[in-house]
């Protein structure tokens, strides 16, 4: 139980300044939304008092869209239009999805990400996820009584750039302002570490419905530092269901069940798996639509037998993460279990054996990620005084590189680099007189381009013709705090430049998002223009408020002329924000940002000097 914080008078944020911020755990099986209210993190409930929202979306012929429990009821009746476990499809092409043959959907293998043909037309996994997020947004806004300032959305630590980008796109589509994408194990570590005041090296073992993550963190007072992370983005509780499903088919001698029968059997398999956590054996009796009878008893031993190697499969990434961290299993002080699948007794037992200690299971594995995300959202929204904030240092899970001659990868940013990070590498031309160069950006650990994920291709044109090897092309990778990459290339002698946000290969193009936003709003669920105006007004208000606070504390960093210029910019922005012209506000915001750049930069310098002022000068023997 977290304690209520009482801060010095004047240090705490005023009650009316409290910004509504939530954390969302967008899970393969279930999704949740949580917030911090009066200093206490809590999950928000729906009208029926439930916190877990099944991550299922049902597209009905009449244009309605059902989400959650209502959609769940349609799983076995209308499998083709009822989308479950959509997280497995995010940022993925058809060939990357495991067990695609048991998914009863009408797949369209579009360029980049796979699409699904439904009764309401072709849908991308981003749109399906956006429906889940929208449902949670409405729940949160009702529960908190106002519009959300921002959200933190959790993603598996092992998600690559395409999967992260897809998640961020889904949030945008759902009308959410993403403060940060946060890695799930890191979110759990925040919730766990703050609650238990833990210090030392901890491992977070996160086995969800469709993904597995292992993160090794160093926890100390106020600092959460991820040392290494690893995982498997397509391994989770679903795979245990699938093993049981196959076992049931085999033992009931059923071949090629229909889509509906498959769905029913899969639902049954999950139910059996969950019951085996407490029961030694579970009977399965059902009559399929085909007329086939299933009459079996599943013993826990059998279940353990057929799924043991799935658990072993999770231990490989665990070993890799420890090696990257330069640690032995014994050096880990505690192992935090996260994700519903860690309830299975043999998972706990095998993980316990590996680390030589019983894993920590005192937090609800279903809600701990959302709770941590809510705590981080509260910090990011600026609801806590700076002195009480913690520092979170996370890493990228997979190396980023570029294709060179012969289909080989030159790694530019190695995995487990602390983010944000940037690295540059120089390349040169291969042929005499070459005037263009293609940059192919990939992510992964293998040496061959073909074994890594392709993130983007772009071209740098206008290189002046020179002899081979004379041009100096500097390619710079920048990874932001969300773990998202942008790449730029620049010819050093002439300054010719190309820059891309890494999106094209596996993400959605900007115009696609715009189209989806438009079509979504045509369904009269929202008024796009009103929303966009409101968003710009809120942004302007936010900027003005922040600037006034900065001027109050650091106004002395500006001389009279600079101050007057900034005041003019403030007045112009304030005036625009009171009007109804979205474009005018946007333009004023941009010019205001330019005007306030120098001030921001001086405040940053002052703040850094302050950080070092604590060190004694006499220590600095040079």
């Amino acid at each position, binding site marked *: 139980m977290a304690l209520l914080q009482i801060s010095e008078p004047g240090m705490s944020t005023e009650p009316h300044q409290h*910004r509504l911020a939530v954390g969302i755990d967008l899970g393969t099986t279930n999704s949740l939304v949580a917030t911090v209210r009066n200093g206490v993190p809590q999950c928000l409930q729906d009208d029926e008092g439930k916190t877990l929202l099944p991550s299922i979306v049902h597209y009905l012929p009449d244009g309605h869209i059902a989400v959650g429990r209502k959609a769940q009821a349609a799983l076995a009746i209308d499998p083709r239009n009822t989308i479950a476990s959509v997280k497995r499809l995010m940022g993925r092409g058809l060939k990357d999805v495991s067990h695609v043959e048991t998914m009863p959907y009408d797949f369209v293998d579009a360029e980049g990400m796979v699409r699904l043909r439904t009764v309401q037309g072709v849908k991308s996994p981003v749109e399906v996820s956006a429906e889940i997020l929208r449902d949670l947004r409405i729940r949160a806004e009702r529960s908190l009584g106002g519009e959300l*300032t*921002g959200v933190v959305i959790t993603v598996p630590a092992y998600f690559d750039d395409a999967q992260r980008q897809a998640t961020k796109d889904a949030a945008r589509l759902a009308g959410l302002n993403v*403060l*940060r994408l946060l890695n799930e194990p890191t979110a759990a570590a925040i919730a766990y570490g703050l609650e238990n005041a833990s210090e030392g090296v901890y491992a977070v073992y996160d086995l969800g419905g469709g993904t597995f993550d292992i993160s090794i963190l160093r926890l100390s007072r106020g*600092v959460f530092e991820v040392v290494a992370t690893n995982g498997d983005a397509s391994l989770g509780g679903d795979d245990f269901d699938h093993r049981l499903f196959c076992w049931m088919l085999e033992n009931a001698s059923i071949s090629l069940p229909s889509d509906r029968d498959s769905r029913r059997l899969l639902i049954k398999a999950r139910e059996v798996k969950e019951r085996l956590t407490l029961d030694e054996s579970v009977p399965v009796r059902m009559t399929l639509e085909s007329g086939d009878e299933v009459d079996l008893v599943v013993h826990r031993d059998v279940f353990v037998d057929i799924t043991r190697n799935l658990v072993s499969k999770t231990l*490989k990434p665990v*070993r*890799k993460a420890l*090696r990257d961290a330069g640690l032995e299993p014994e050096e880990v002080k505690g192992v935090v279990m996260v994700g519903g699948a860690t309830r299975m007794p043999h998972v706990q037992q095998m993980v316990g054996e590996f680390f030589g200690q019983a894993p920590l299971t005192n937090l609800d594995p279903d809600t701990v990620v959302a709770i941590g995300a809510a705590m*981080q959202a509260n*910090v*990011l*929204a*600026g609801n806590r005084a*700076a002195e009480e*904030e913690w*520092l*979170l*240092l996370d890493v990228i899970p997979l190396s980023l590189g570029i294709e060179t001659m012969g289909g080989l990868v030159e790694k530019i940013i190695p995995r487990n*680099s*602390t*983010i*944000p*990070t*940037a*690295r540059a590498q120089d390349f040169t031309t291969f042929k005499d007189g070459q005037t263009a160069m293609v940059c192919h950006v990939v992510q992964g650990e293998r040496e061959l381009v073909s074994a890594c994920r392709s993130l983007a291709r772009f071209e740098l044109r206008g290189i002046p013709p020179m002899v081979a090897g004379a041009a100096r092309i500097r390619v710079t990778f*920048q990874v*932001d*705090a969300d773990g998202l990459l942008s790449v730029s290339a620049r010819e050093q002698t002439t300054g010719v430049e190309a820059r891309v946000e890494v999106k094209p290969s596996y993400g959605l193009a900007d115009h696609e998002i715009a189209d989806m936003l438009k079509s979504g709003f045509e369904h009269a669920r929202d008024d796009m223009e009103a929303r966009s105006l409101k968003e710009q007004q809120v942004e302007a208000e*936010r*900027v003005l408020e*922040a*600037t006034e606070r900065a001027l109050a504390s650091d106004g002395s960093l500006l001389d009279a002329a600079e101050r007057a210029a900034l005041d003019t910019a403030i007045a112009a922005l304030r005036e625009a924000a009171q009007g109804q012209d979205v474009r005018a506000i946007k333009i004023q915001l941009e010019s*205001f*940002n*330019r005007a*306030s*750049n120098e001030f*921001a*930069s001086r405040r*940053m*310098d002052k*703040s*850094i*000097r*302050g*950080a*070092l002022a*604590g*060190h004694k000068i006499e*220590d*600095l*023997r*040079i």
Partner: protein
Amino acid sequence: MLDLKQDYFALFGLPVSFAIDVARLEQAYLDIQAKVHPDRFAHLPDADKRLSMQWATHANEAFRTLKTPLARGQYLLEMQGVDPAFETNTAMSPEFLMEQMEWREALGEAREAADEDTLEELSQRLRASSRDLVARLASALDERKDLALAADTVRRLKFLEKLQHEINDALTALES
């Protein structure tokens, strides 16, 4: 005046030398990140966010460089106008090259035979060797001010680091 172009030692308020007080480096790094990290600026205007990302990126790169002995040694050489990478074709001592070949052979054989114990043992020996070279680098930079020797040592350490990566990859491959 602080700026992104100042050297990494100055950024963390540390003396310019190879020998480094790791605890102080870590503390200074955390103190700076506590001020500049993007999480502190998520609710602020874009101008602040951009600056924050630049600074946090810079602090991470500076910390990474000073924390690892090889990167720190190389950085100190670069500060003094020596680029060790430019001199890769300088002749390395024959005995070092011989040793390299032996190591490569041993690695190749162990990999072929899927011999985990030998790989682990190689990794241990390599680490011991690296430690000796780091000591030599410290003396070359801090005491003897022998930049040529320091550059040579940096190059050797690079060889060993590459070898260590290959051993780790081989060990990882054995597990999967």
